[in-house]
């Protein structure tokens, strides 16, 4: 009798206990608690790749060699050669913010690939200002930033491995020559149950 009552109470309380333990919480973006999936690029990977590219670029001193600092950079094509659909802004935006904060470079938002602009309103206002002034006020970019993200996969038994290669090039807009090149490879390995693909 007592056992039956006790079991009934436990059965009734179980959903509340389990439900109370399963809760969402905030974690540091890109921190150690972040989920790591082998088959896809995680936010911590973008942060690492952007950090590596920015550090290398700033340390190279290339951006200091422009005649009229800070250097102006236009974002060109970033090719996605991975097995998933990604927004390359997750990488380039971080680089742009870091370069702007460094004081060494600015990014143009009115000049983009194929004539498109990131900020159509700014482009319109700029064109209006040029029309009124009857002269070009747009500063031609000193450099363009282009790149590619490549995914290499490998499998041995139940272990799967993905390497994401973030390749970037900074090209002198006048000469067409790459003045800086950077590559960051991030490799992740896991067993079958941890694989995201």
């Amino acid at each position, binding site marked *: 009798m007592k056992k039956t009552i006790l079991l009934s109470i436990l059965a009734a309380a179980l959903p509340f206990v389990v439900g109370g333990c399963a809760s969402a919480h905030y974690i540091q973006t890109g921190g150690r608690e972040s989920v790591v999936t082998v088959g896809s690029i995680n936010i911590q990977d973008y942060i*690492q790749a952007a950090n590596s590219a920015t550090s*290398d670029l*700033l*340390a190279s001193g290339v951006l200091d060699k422009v005649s009229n600092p800070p250097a102006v950079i236009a974002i060109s094509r970033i090719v996605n050669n991975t097995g998933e659909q990604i927004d390359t802004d997750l990488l380039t935006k*971080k680089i742009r913010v*870091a370069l702007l904060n*460094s004081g*060494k470079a600015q990014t143009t938002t009115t000049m983009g690939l194929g004539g498109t602009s990131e900020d159509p309103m700014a482009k319109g206002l700029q064109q209006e200002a040029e029309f009124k002034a009857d002269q070009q006020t747009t500063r031609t970019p000193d450099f363009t930033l282009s790149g590619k993200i490549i995914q290499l996969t490998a499998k041995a038994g139940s272990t799967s491995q993905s390497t994401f290669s973030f390749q970037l090039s900074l090209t002198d807009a006048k000469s067409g020559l790459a003045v800086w090149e950077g590559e960051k490879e991030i490799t992740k390995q896991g067993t079958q149950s941890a694989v995201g693909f």
Partner: protein
Amino acid sequence: MKTRILLPVAGVVLLAVAGCRTSMNSIENTQKTGQRQMISDSRVITDGSLARKVSFVGVNESTTPGGFLKIQIEVFNRKHSLQRFSYQFEWFDANGMQINNIVSPTVGDQIEGGESKFISAVAPTTACKDFRVKFIED
């Protein structure tokens, strides 16, 4: 009878364990051309386990052509097996205020047994004058 079975099994187990523990040998030139500008450092150790495995050898700094502070830390794995850890750089300006850096990642790394390796980072702005690096065992 039991000894005849147990001894070979124990031998196989010992061999397997020994195979998992590999440490690194290295060779380098004695007469160094490059001179590292070592700086005195202040260490706070709260994880004795990590400190016993991966220890700090020294810190040296330099300035890039663009005026950015560059820090290099040498760490050494005192154990004979691979160790995993994460680290993160923090940067401070001349007033001791932390500079928020959008691309300051927590980097997961590994170091082979007996290996000495360098971890380096470049400050995000020329205003950075001081730094702190946080290490945690994975």
